[in-house]
């Protein structure tokens, strides 16, 4: 699961559920959701073995408060760029990860639903990604460790043309770089 030593170090030094985040493949967004559900279960089971991490308990409890959310995906309301409180634990967890390893880098990828023009949506997705990055900077992550980018409406996580699909597509995905 872990592809390089840098990530292994991070995982070792990090909270248990973060291991799932750092190693999640990002190729196919729809499949990622399934993987993350699985990962969550696994993480909870293996949690006692990951007890070396001093912050494990805190992060895990916040995780349990938001069982449906994905480790690295933050969803947004229609026409909104505000990171909702329920997703703050994800932002904080990634911020902690980065603060513990100054060589680690993450990209925040903004996405929108399918409605509207491609360029304006690209800018809206950028705004969402920058909102997440800004929160992480406030939490003490260095500017050089973060990049906000956007795919606009070009890479939906879910196909479909209704609010259920749109809600899944208005998101920021955090991925290691």
């Amino acid at each position, binding site marked *: 699961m872990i592809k390089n030593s840098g990530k292994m170090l991070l995982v070792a030094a990090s909270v248990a559920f973060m291991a799932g985040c750092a190693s999640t493949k990002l190729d196919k967004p729809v499949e990622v959701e399934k993987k993350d559900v699985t990962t969550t279960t696994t993480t909870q089971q293996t949690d006692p073995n990951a007890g070396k991490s001093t912050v494990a308990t805190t992060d895990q409890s916040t995780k349990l408060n938001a069982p449906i959310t994905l480790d690295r995906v933050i969803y947004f309301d229609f026409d909104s760029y505000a990171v909702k409180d329920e997703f703050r634990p994800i932002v904080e967890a990634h911020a902690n990860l980065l603060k513990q390893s100054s060589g680690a880098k993450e990209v925040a990828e903004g996405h929108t639903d399918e409605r509207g023009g491609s*360029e*304006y949506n690209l800018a809206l997705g950028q705004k969402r990604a*920058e909102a997440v990055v800004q929160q992480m900077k406030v939490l003490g992550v260095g500017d050089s460790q973060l990049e906000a*980018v956007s795919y606009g409406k070009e890479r939906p996580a879910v196909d479909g043309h209704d609010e259920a699909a749109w809600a899944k597509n208005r998101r920021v995905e955090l991925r290691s770089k």
Partner: protein
Amino acid sequence: MWPRRHALRALGASLALPALTPALAQFRVEIGGTGMTQIPIVLGRFRDEDRQPQSISAIVRADLERSGIFKVVDGVAPVDENGTPDYNALKARGADWVAAGSAARLADGRIDVRFRLWDVVKGADQGGQSEPTLPVDLRMSAHHVSDQIYQKVTGQRGVFSTRIAYVTKAPGKFTLRITDADGENIQAALIDNQPIISPSWSPDGGELAYVTFHDKKAKVVIRNVRTGATREVAAFKGSNSAPAFSPDGRTMAVTLSKDGGSHVFLMDRNGGNVRRFTDSTGIDTEARFSPDGGSVYFVSDRGGGPQIYRQSVGGGGATRVTFNGAYNISPALSPDGKLLAYISRGNGFKVMVMDLATNEVRSVSDTNDDESPSFAPNGRYIIYATKSDGRDVLMTTTVDGKFKSKLLESGLDIREPVWGPFGR
């Protein structure tokens, strides 16, 4: 004589601009429109065209009919460009013009595409041309014949030999394509498993700028259409998008997020001398130069929702241009700078055309999923992407919205059409 001149005046009026009723015409499947006076023309088969890979007269006929300006009528044309029309017989058929030609193969393998046009009403030879061409370029030469006929009859340049770039999206496969203006001769310029958006022609038609996500973020690349050579011109931290060339081809406008937010920057066409152009704290994007190069139109949400603004290249603040509706994006300027086409969200997304002198706005589409309007280089047509009967299509419409033609239809997602310049 009088009836035809009368008809031409009526045509001129309807093309010149907007006697402003919204297009109420029901959308038709292939070609549709009402209210336009069409010029009757007899078009002969080109002598020897049956021996060539393409039927020139069929291509010309389709061009003329698609333009909305001509009605091809039955009648006997001269056998080729050297013949003599029977004007009385043609008048009896109701024809105002007649064209004939030939397509003989030359000793060197090329094909000599020749034609001549006659004014039936005046009973006068209106001249013609000879264009020896490689067999591979035969379609282009046929389009040149159409361009000549269009220009001699209307006084305006034809756009039949121009090209249109657009993007198709299949699952996991994005393709930047270039088609002739009649929807034929489609060629793939770039295939990628990552998105491609915002193609934009250089003024000479030799290059296409576009946004690639190949490296997992939006970067602006310029591609030489003929050779396929590419160069990255904007790859700063964050997103790089929405390229547009200035009319002289020396400057580009792009949207960069390198300083946070999305703002319009100007730079040299090689990517150097980057300087910030717009100064709002909100989103500024989709810049388009005015045809005189003196100002830039762009989309900004500085007032709340996205609206179109204009700002002088020389400096000064931005002036808001669109006021109707809460969401107006994707500006396109007519080549004479007098009309602004854009997409407005109301009940769906629709192509609108604004007369910049009067600020009058008209809807020119019959559909509700319109995207990416782009003017033909002669200013007479607008192409846009939309959905019709659940399928993705590229539509063209006259700028008054009266005459529409479906250029392309596909089960694939077809997007982002942009009409190339004259000169091929």
